[in-house]
């Protein structure tokens, strides 16, 4: 795979490769379990009792989080040396941590699937330090501790590289985001017996990740890809980056309040959450303007068109998913009816895919060809396939979102809106939504096809008879 | 008249209008109070925007955006109170 070719500027950037590969492998797993859940929504006893729904969901969401983290780490290892203009502090540590994280993650997923969850809790000594059984934080306490150790080693490695190298805005913002990610995760260890306290600080992990520090990571990766593919002056890109992340934090921090409406926190959060989260689409809108204006002002036509497509795509889909679909139900009087309905699921899917899956696919699309000795990108044929996969995945995810939105609207109409007594029960409502769930499942299958095409595109054009461009790129 | 003198005059006027608004709450008959205070607020705000902020000669887009903010807030207050 890597023929010792040095198309990347620093040899140690190559540690990113296993992170990217494993991220995509986990992404496949995530989608497989997504499809299983999609079917369980329609055929309730599908795979029961082998894989109960809660297990499938745990695997689906945990794989999402872990593959995104692998992607972020790979992106960091790839871009930090180039930005800092020096080799990574310790490539050896990066390789060791890859295996530690990969094995711990795999064992955890196997644990979810192999034994009942209560048994897993017992086996891992959850009773001594209970942190399990909360949405997205289902990992056994020892896995959580492992994540912290990996994060510390990772931050040390990257932090020393940045400290001893050139401190660009992209580097510093990325570091802030990664440190924030690790610090906020510490709240995963806080699990009081008071449910409201638990939920209040649980959101410090979840919301302050996805609507806080992750936006810094996303912004800096996007800025890096745009500098590389458009050749626009760094000074201009860095100014935009500052303004975007400033808006992200200014709106996102008090925007946490939109999760405090109905969990027992004081009523004033209805006002604070509504007012500040109403502005949360703003940073995503600015990111959209940013990406398109940089590509319009590009000084060169980078031959990796696929990476540019993903960079533009992530800004559009993130704006739709996080911005538009988020705003749709962020105001307290609306959220009173939409809270915890299929509408929430619709928003979650498009936002996560647009903002965080796509930014990872963008950096992978840019970095992996370079790591494989093709700085100008994959062959034209491969890129066409990859761009097609981008459209297929984006449109099918949009379709999933639209069908879930329709399901959510109908659910609210039947189950939430009428008075007690007239309202349909939860399960009776679910039966009425079956058509939408079938449509959602169909869109999910198309999405899986898109993912297969994406992965396949990296293997297209390696055989004889490739285009001249590809042959040239392979020999440089 | 120098710019410093203009600024001083505007300052004195703003202080006078502020006291007037506070007094109005005790003197003006109830139905007229909201429009009266709203009018005073707009005059004060526009003075700050044009004179102190120095937006009189600035880009019209900027000047109108800031003025529109003031007008919007005051109009909302008047409309909601009177209906």
């Amino acid at each position, binding site marked *: 795979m890597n023929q010792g070719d040095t198309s990347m500027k620093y040899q140690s950037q190559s540690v990113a490769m296993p992170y990217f590969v494993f991220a995509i492998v986990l992404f496949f797993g995530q989608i497989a379990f997504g499809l299983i859940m999609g079917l369980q929504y329609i055929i309730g006893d599908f795979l029961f009792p082998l894989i109960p*729904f809660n*297990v499938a969901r*745990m695997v689906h969401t945990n794989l999402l989080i872990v593959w995104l983290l692998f992607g972020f780490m790979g992106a960091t290892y790839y871009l930090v040396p180039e930005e800092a203009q020096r080799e990574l502090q310790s490539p050896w540590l990066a390789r060791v941590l890859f295996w530690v994280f990969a094995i711990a993650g795999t064992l955890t997923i196997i644990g979810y699937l192999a034994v*009942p969850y209560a048994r897993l809790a017992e086996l891992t000594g959850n009773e001594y330090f209970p942190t399990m059984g909360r*949405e997205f934080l289902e990992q056994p306490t020892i896995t959580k501790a492992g994540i912290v150790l990996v994060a510390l080693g990772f931050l040390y490695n990257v932090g020393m590289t940045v400290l001893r190298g050139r401190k660009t805005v992209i580097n510093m913002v990325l570091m802030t985001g990664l440190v924030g990610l690790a610090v906020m995760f510490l709240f995963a260890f806080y699990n009081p017996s008071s*449910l*409201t306290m*638990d939920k209040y600080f649980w959101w410090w992990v979840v919301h302050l990740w996805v609507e806080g520090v992750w936006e810094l990571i996303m912004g800096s990766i996007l800025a890096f890809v745009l500098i590389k593919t458009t050749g626009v002056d760094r000074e201009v890109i860095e100014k935009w980056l500052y303004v975007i992340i*400033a808006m992200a934090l200014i709106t996102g921090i008090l925007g946490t309040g939109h999760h405090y409406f109905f969990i027992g926190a004081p*009523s004033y959060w209805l006002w604070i959450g509504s007012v500040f989260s109403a502005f949360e689409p703003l940073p995503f809108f600015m990111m959209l303007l940013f990406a398109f204006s940089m590509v319009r002002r590009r000084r060169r036509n980078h031959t990796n068109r696929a990476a540019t497509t993903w960079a533009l795509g992530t800004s559009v889909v993130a704006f739709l998913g996080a911005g538009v679909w988020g705003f749709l139900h962020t105001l307290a009087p609306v959220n009173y009816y939409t809270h915890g309905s299929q509408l929430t699921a619709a928003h979650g899917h498009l936002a996560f895919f647009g903002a965080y899956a796509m930014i990872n696919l963008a950096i992978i699309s840019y970095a992996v060809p370079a790591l494989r000795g093709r700085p100008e990108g994959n062959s034209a044929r491969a890129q066409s396939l990859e761009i097609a996969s981008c459209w297929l995945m984006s449109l099918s995810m949009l379709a999933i979102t639209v069908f879930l939105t329709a399901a959510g609207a109908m659910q609210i109409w039947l189950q939430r809106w009428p008075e007690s007594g007239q309202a349909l029960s939860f399960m009776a409502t679910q039966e009425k939504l079956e058509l939408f769930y079938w449509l959602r499942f169909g869109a999910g299958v198309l999405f899986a096809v898109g993912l297969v095409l994406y992965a396949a595109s990296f293997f297209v054009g390696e055989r004889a008879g490739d285009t001249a461009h590809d042959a040239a790129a392979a020999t440089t | 008249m120098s710019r410093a003198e203009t600024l001083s005059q505007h300052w004195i006027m703003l202080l006078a209008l502020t006291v007037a608004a506070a007094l109005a709450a005790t003197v003006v008959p109830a139905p007229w109070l909201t429009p009266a205070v709203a009018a005073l607020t707009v005059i004060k705000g526009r003075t700050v925007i044009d004179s102190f902020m120095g937006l009189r000669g600035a880009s019209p887009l900027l000047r109108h955006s800031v003025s529109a903010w003031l007008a919007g807030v005051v109009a909302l207050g008047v409309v909601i109170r009177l209906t």
Partner: protein
Amino acid sequence: MSERFTKGMARNIYYGGSLFFILLFLGLTFDTVTALPDRENRAGLTDTVAEGKEVWEQNDCIGCHTLLGEGAYFAPELGNVFERRGNGNEAAFKAYLNAWINAQPTQAPGRRQMPQFNLSDHEINALAEFLIWTSRIRNNDWPPNVEG
């Protein structure tokens, strides 16, 4: 236009703005934490309720159900299940919950299935206490109706 828009100013706004909102958020958090004992009836949070929360967590109930609207959307909301199924009668609710959990899975073909968790009567009682306590949290009157 671009030279009138400097990077230093953008950076200052980022640092200043973030610090500003972090401080404000911490202040509000302090106030909220002060208010919570009253809003969630902390005095009623007995050891049994705390044990019920552990039962809830150790069986990953949140992986199918929602609790106060958060969780998975595969099975009904349980923050108000005490009102829906117990009609405000604690003894009736406990009996109902015990019978329901022991009857799982229903094995009705094609229907969504809840696993058999093999909970003891003691654990089911604790879970019931936890759900009763949860239903009394003052949460701005959500959900809109009894169906959750």
